[in-house]
Every structure is written in C-alpha cells, then in structure tokens.
C-alpha cells in the first residue's frame, strides 16, 4: 500500500471567522498523557522539563494534576514509553483535537459555556474544565489567544456550540 494514509477530521478544515473571533482547527500533533508519583523520574525518562504547579505550562507541557501531565509535539514525534519504570506514558495523539480561538471576543465566546472566570485567567495557563456538559482542556496563550482541546467525538458538538456563541456575540454588545 503505497498510498499515503488519509486523515479524517470531524470538524471543518476552514476557519470560522467572526468580527471579534476566529475559530479554527489546529494542525494535528503528537500528544502524550504522562503519569508518575515522582516528577523527577518522569523527567529523566522523557527528557522533558515538567511544570510542578497545576495549570502551569512549560513549553508544550501542562501540569494537569498532582501526578498528571500532558505534553505535545509536532506530529510524528516520538517519546520513550518508560517501560519498566514507575511511570505511565500513553500516546493520546488521536484522542483529541485542538481548536484555536483568537481575537478580542475569544474570551467572551468561551465564557458562553465555560463556568471559569475566563477573562481573568492568567497566561500561559491550561486547565481541564467544561464547556456546558463537555469536558475540555482550556489553554490561554495570550490575552486574545486560546486553545481548546476536546475529545474527538465531542468536537462537532463543540464546534457548533462555539460558532453559535460567536454568531450570537455579533448581536450582543460587549
């Protein structure tokens, strides 16, 4: 089979552009869930620098819990799987996809369904939270730049919800 495998994504490849926000599907990337009691051991196994505070982002690595991290890398990258060590490295590249929200209205669009105080989130910062009933990983990279990582099967719902909220926002004064 010489054909290059074709990747299918459940949300449109074309960005949705609104007056205050652009919502787009990010390029595919590698993702790993990292678990360990001992962060230093995990750093040794993976060669990554791990943030220690929940919500903290160092490079492409996020601390999600006392023993849990997420790290990302360009598609095709590899990471040692830590076999035999007291760590867990799981490839979850395909479990989720990432949507980017950029523009001055991005925080308001996210606040339409996310109970966190989105406006006052520091950056860089990332945290597991929800958009209405759907679990997401919300990351703020700059004042006007957010990414939302969501499990693949929930992505069409989230895409519709975010674009609907952005469309509503055009009618509603800030």
């Amino acid at each position, binding site marked *: 089979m010489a054909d290059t495998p074709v*990747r299918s994504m459940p949300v449109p490849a074309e960005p949705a552009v609104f007056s205050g926000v652009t919502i787009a599907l990010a390029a595919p990337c590698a993702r790993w869930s990292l678990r360990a009691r001992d962060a230093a051991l995990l750093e040794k196994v993976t060669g990554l620098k791990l943030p220690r505070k929940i919500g903290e982002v160092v490079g492409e690595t996020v601390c999600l819990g006392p023993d849990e991290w997420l790290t990302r890398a360009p598609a095709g990258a590899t990471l040692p*799987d830590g076999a035999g060590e*007291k760590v*867990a490295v799981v490839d979850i590249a*395909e479990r989720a996809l990432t949507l980017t929200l950029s523009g001055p209205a991005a925080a308001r669009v996210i606040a*339409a*369904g996310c109970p966190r105080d989105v406006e006052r989130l520091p950056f860089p910062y990332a945290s597991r939270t929800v958009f209405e009933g*759907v679990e997401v990983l919300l990351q703020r990279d700059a004042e006007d730049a957010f990414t939302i990582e969501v499990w693949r*099967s929930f992505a069409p719902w989230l895409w519709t919800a975010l674009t*609907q909220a952005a469309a509503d926002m055009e009618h509603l004064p800030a």
Partner: protein
Amino acid sequence: MSGYRIDGLGRVDRSRRVNFTFDGQAYAGFAGDSLASALLAHGVTLFGRSFKYHRPRGLLGAGAEEPNALVTVERGGGVFTPNLRATAVEIHEGLVARSQNRWPSLKTDFGSINDRLGRFFPAGFYNKTFMWPRSFWEKLYEPAIRRMAGLGDAPTVADPDHYAATYAHCELLIIGAGPAGIDAALEAAGTKQRVILIDENAEMGGGALADPALAAWLERSLKALAEAPNVTLLKRTTAFGYYHDNFIGAVERLTDHLANPGPQSLRAPREQLWRIRAGEVVLATGAIERPLVFAGNDVPGVMLASAARTFLFRDGVAVGRNVAVMAAHDSGWKDACAMARAGMGVAAIIDCRSEVDPALVQEAESLGIDCLIHWSVVGVNGRHGVKSVQVLHHDDFLDRRLPCDALLMAGGWTPSVHLWSHSLGSLAWSDDWGAYLPDKPNEKVRCVGACAGKWSFGSGMNVGHLETNRNPAAIKAFVDFQNDVTAKDISLAVREGMKSVEHIKRYTTNGMATDQGKTSNLNALQLASAAMGKPVPEIGLTTFRPPYTPQTFGALAGHAQGPLFQPTRKSPIDSWAEAQGAVYEPVAQWRRARYFPKPGEDMHKAVARECLAVRERVGIFDASTLGKIEVIGPDAAEFLNRMYTNPWKALEPGRCRYGLLLGEDGFIRDDGVSARMAPDRFHLTTTTGGAARVLNMMEDYLQTEWPDLDVWLTSTTEQWAVIALQGPKAREVIAPLVQGIDLSPEAFPHMAVREGTICGVPTRLFRVSFTGELGFEINVPAGFGRHVWEQVFAAGQAHGITPYGTETMHVLRAEKGFIIVGQDTDGTVTPHDAGLDWAVGKKKPDFVGKRSLARPDIVADGRKQLVGLLTDNPAEVLEEGAQIVADPNQPVPMKMIGHVTSSYASATLGRSIAMALVADGRARVGQKLHIPMPGRVITATVTDTLFYDREGSRLDG
C-alpha cells in the same frame, strides 16, 4: 374609571407614536409605554378575567407584582407568548396582544357564571367534590376544570427563536437599579472591581422613574455608570434565582421589545441566560405595596396607590379624573398629595386608622382633598370600572356612597426579600413594616434601600380585613387576586384545621399563582393570624422559591436545543456509514449503525443478509465506540487481578483475556476482552455504555483502596478506531494489507494481539471474536479509521465483504450465547446466574465482589439463571421482556418465573432463538415453559445458551 394622558408628565417619548392592537382593536401609544400604560391612557379598564370566578379584572400594580392583567402577545406564524403581565410588555409598532381566559370576549364572558355560583365552590371544593368515581378525574373532571379555570393557552408550534447563554464573573453584583442600587453602583464605579448592575425594566431608575424630583440625579448617575469602564449595565434583565455561593441566574430579554427583530435566520437571540458568580451581592430589590382586603377590592379601577403614582409620573397617564384613596399607611397620603399637586383630581382619602399625622392631613386638606379618618371602604360600585365606593364610619357603622372613578389602595409596604430568601438569609418580623425584613445573611450579600427596610415610606397600621358592616360570609374580599383566594377562604382553611401557613397555602392556593403571592402573602398571614388568634411570627412564612417572575423555557435551556441539546458522539467511521444509508440507534451518547438496508429491505431482511454474510464469507463492523483503558505500571497485572474475577497475573504479553467485572455486591457490572501489550502495559476494553463508569470505578479503587499500587489508568476510547472483521474470509481480506505481523493461525492464535501496520498505519491487531467466526479487531489511530476502513472494504470486495451493524452483531453473539451486559444482565445477575463460572478464579484470594458471591442469598437455590429458549414454532420470535410462567392454566395473577432478555430470528439456524433469565433455569433444561401474550400463550423449550457451532470449530476460519 377613565384614564387619560396628562400633559407635561412622564418619560414616554410623545414625538414617537406607536400603533398596536389589543383584542383586535387598534390603539396608539408612545415609545416608552408599557401595554398597561398605553391602554390605560385610552380609558381601558378591563384587562382580563380572573382564574377561577372569571371576574372582570383591571390593573392592580404597575410592575412585576401585577396579578390580574395577564395577556398573550403574538410573535407571528402561530407563535405566541401567554401569561405576560401587561405592565411588563413594552409596546412596539405592530404589537398584537390579546386577553386570556374568556369566551367569547373579555366584556361578555360565559365563564363569569362561576362568579354567581362562587359560594358553591369555596377553597378545597375541587379536592372534595371530584374525588369519585376515581376514573372520572382524568377523562372528565380535570379537562373540564382546566378549560374553565386557567391562564393563557400553551403554544403548540415549535419555538422558532434561539436563545443565548453565558457565564459572567464579577466582584460586585447589584440587583435592582432604583436609587439604592444606583448609589451602590456609583460607590464602586471607578474601582478595580467588576460591577454588574441589573434591572428588570426597560429603563433603569426603579422608583426614581416616578419621582420628577429625582430626574436630574437619575440622568447624571446613569451617565456616570455608563461611562465607568468597570460597570456593566444590564437592563430588561430579571435575576430570577439566587443559588449557592453567590451564583445568580438572570434572563436578559433581547428582542421581544423590537418592532422588527429581523428575519429569523439573522435575528439576535431572543433572550440570554446569565449565570453570574459574584464576589458580593447587593440586593436593591425594593418593596411592593400591599393591597387592602375589602369587598369589591378587585373591581377594575381599584389599584395600588403606588401604581397610580407610577403611571402618572413615569408614563404620563392619570388613572382617573376623580380618584379616592383607601389608606392604612402614610404613603397613600403622600402619593395622593403628589398626584393632586400634579393636576390629577383626588376626591378623598379614606383612612382606617383613628389617628393620622396632622401634617399629612393638613397638606391633603390644603389641596382640597376630603379626609375621612377612621373610615373604611366596604363596597365598590361598578362592574367593569369604578362608579363610586361605599364608605363606612367606624363609629356609627353606617355606610354612605362616595362618587369617584378609581380607588387607590395604600396598605403598607412589603420588602422584596425573594432573592434574599433564595440565598437562605434569615428574616425577622417587623411590626413597623407589618412585614418580614432581611436579618442574618447566609452568603456574602447585603440588602440596601427598601428591600432592607431602610426606606422611609412613613408609618401605617397592619390590618387583615377592613372593618365592614356586611356579612363576612356573603362578600368576596380578595387576598390573592391571581388565584381568586378571598378572606373567607383563609378563615375556612383555619376552621378546617389548617394550622401551618404552608397548609393554608396549599388548601387555599394562596400565593401559588404565577405571581407567587407578591401582593397577597402578607395579607393572608394577617388574616390567618387574626383567625387563629396568634401573632404573625408564630405562623411563619411560606418558602420563596425561584423563579422570582416566570421565565421562558427557552431562556433556561439556553444553548441546549436542536443540535446542541446534547452531544451525539460519532465514531470516525460514522460518516462512511451515513453515506451507505445506515439506520442508526443510540447507544449511550453515541449513535451507532444498526443495519445497512439495501433497497427494499426492512430490518429483518437486512439483518438476515448481514448475518449470513458473516457466517459464510466476511463482515465488517465498526466497534470504535467500545470503551478502552490503557493500564500501565509495575503493578498493572496485580491491579487487574484484584478488579476482575479471573486471573490476570499469568497472562503473557501478546495474549488477550475475557474480563468480567463485578460490583462489591457480586453482580455483573461490565465485561470486555483485554490484552497484555507488555509486562507493565494492558489494553482494556469495556462496553460502549460502561466506558466512563468502569474508568471511574477503577480510579475509585485505585485512589481509595489501593493507593500503594503503582498503576495509572488512561482512557484511550477515542485514541483508537476499531474495525471488526469477522468471518471465514477475514484473514484473506487483511493479509495483503498487513505488514510486520505473521497472520498464520500458529503464529497468531485466537485471543492474541500483535503490533504492526495496516495500510501504512500503525495498528494493534487483536484476534478476537464476538461472533464465533474467525475474527480480527483492527485498532488504528482514530484519524486514520475511515481510511483503513475504506481500504479494507475495497480489499474485501473480492470476498463478498458486507458491512453489518449492531443488530446483526447482537444476533451473531446470541447464536453463540455471549451475553450483553445490561441486556442479559440487569444489575442483579451474578457470574453463576449468567453461566460464567468459568470466568471466576476459584483460587484467587480476592477480587471485587468475591465476598458477596458467598452470601446466603447468592448461593441459595431458586435464583434466576440465564438459559436458552427455543419456541415450539420456529417462526415465532418472542418479545424481549416477555414474562415466563411454568403453568399457563393458573388463575391470574400467575406466578412469573422469569423473562426473555434477548430474542432474534436467526437466519443461520433457520429459526428463532432466545435467551431468558428463569428461576432455577439450568435445572429446567428440556422442560417446556410458557410465555403468555395478549390472546395466546407461546410454548418454548429450555436449552443452554449455545445455539451454534458447539465445538468452536469456526474460530480458525
């Protein structure tokens, strides 16, 4: 009464005429008018018919408290909104409104016969009278009562509008933009705090809108707030509920007030739900004036004095040319004088108190107002409007006629403590106010202004019923206007033994209407207090519950309608199935292809074809929705050994095992085939619906029972697309596509797993079978699921590959007697009941549920066991859920010994098959049992659950 527009007063924009209709008649008002003020300006007095007695009703209030003037507003295309308060409907060009609960018209309403018959149905009448015969209630009594008693009609057309929702955070939330709320906002303007000020009206200002002396202050203040970057002003927004930790629900109305909201597709959301988390809440919700209780207090034209003042100064509408005021409170005197000074004709102030502040009397007299102190109104003359009132001197008990065209009531003030009470702040009775005031807070909240009892309306007297010289049993003096509760209903409730205010409320329905007793609760308390001879605080107060005013379902649903109602999870291959015309079924949150009909096929035919294709050639099935968990760590095998019933420690890497999961009660919770990928890495599968539950259960044990184990769990359900390829040709189909895996039966036996690539995509290839045929489950990264599926499907064409859905999967597994957790089990089935003893490790020291398997009830005889059933008539397919009896000739009710759990027409076997849970089922193998159905009884023979390929010879293809 003859209301009219008065020159030079009010905030309405007289340069902008607004045309609208009410009950088909054309009217014009001004921009800024409510439906109530615009109609009042035309001399309209009659706004509605009451709930129970169909009495003609006019306006009582001018705001959220209005109980009478409920109207329906058309929204076009058969869409309408019922039960809106005319005082809260802003008029716009082309507005179409109509009255409710009347036939054939508001003026001539047949239902008003109820008023004449009123003495035959007092409080509790319905409950007592329509008890028997019981069967009549649903078919006859209830529909008839519903037709007669009621509010507006419920819309039958789907709501075409959409609704927005948002969360908001602020350090200070102020509810109510009257003078007190605005002052609180001004204090915080320019600070670093985020401030939100919300108000339910179209214009902010509250009571200040009806006080010309405050007009300049109001304009200045609102301008300052609008310019403050830290203040958000939300008008037309009702805070309807106050929830834990300063979480407030509010609805902002966005389009209903617009004459032309635009075409539906481009329209703004109709309403927006605000979910606000506030650091501190300031309640500036004001107070509501109380009516007085006397005969005729509901005649159109009898209204609250504060409402008349508001209509005059806010809207420029005088409610009459010659009005009288019935006061028990100083505020009535102040309002009367203010209105008289503004040019409205005030004939008299009647006050039931024996003494009134001389300064007030002097002022009233100087304005030419007749002052009748120690007098009460005992009757109102007029049916659709006030012609005159009968007044009674408390000393001589004789009544005389006083001509007037409206009667204004001033019974004192009730602070609006609704939201305070939602927040579970405590209340304390105040004799001065004759009402409950906020006492101790339960959240970070404070009350300001009238809501806190900190506003000077003057003083008054707390009265239940005004003095009268008439027979109290023969008069209707209304307490709750919306639910038609009268003073005598309250005394009847007390006479019949209701001692708690909560019981009185339910017996009389006082306070249970859409206005939640905003004008009636305190008067009812006073009346009950007098009837019981107990002070009010000993009787208590009914509970305030959200919403403060009725809200639309649309707003509460917010985004959650249409495609956003709930996520429909779709597998990576779903789009292919859709293009093939698959019929779907919901499984947990997923939709799954149930079968793939060809033209002219029904489900039965399609499933028969799909089943035979798998048995004879090869079928392809999307199993992506199965739950998957990656279990990693040095203690992974130990962990699984404790979770599952069977032994896991000896499983070699590269091999799979069926795992059975119990709860602590010993009952089956989930099952699935799992693989050991490496000594410290397992790939678990769970049922589709059980995925999240199983992960939670395992995390729970790991974190609370065995925190010493070095194991980590990661959900990989969505990491992998899973393509099940089942049938004798399965190996031939994938052989040319797979690289790096020896597919030969010797190198890759049943219940094994290998890693390699397929179609250039990395795969975890399982050799497993849920059909009894040679089978593979191809796990590939989800993004490439559809690609690999299409390649496999193309390669399978030469072998007659057939896509199949969940229905065929169910039939094929039933032919092999494989259970489906949740279908053949119901949370009360043990491994032994299900015939799965082989999957329970006898030598294991422990596993979740082991202890329960030795409980006396679990080991006793007579438990229901899973068996097969073969009907005498092979064409008969039993109904799933059908009950089973041993002797069909018993008298009804028969002893039921079990039920059918799975039942199908098996094309492979050329007959029907079924599985059933039957008491002592395995001991009954060979016996005939009976399944009674409407009009007939079906007979079947008990068998074991293995219907096909008893030797298992087909697993190798």
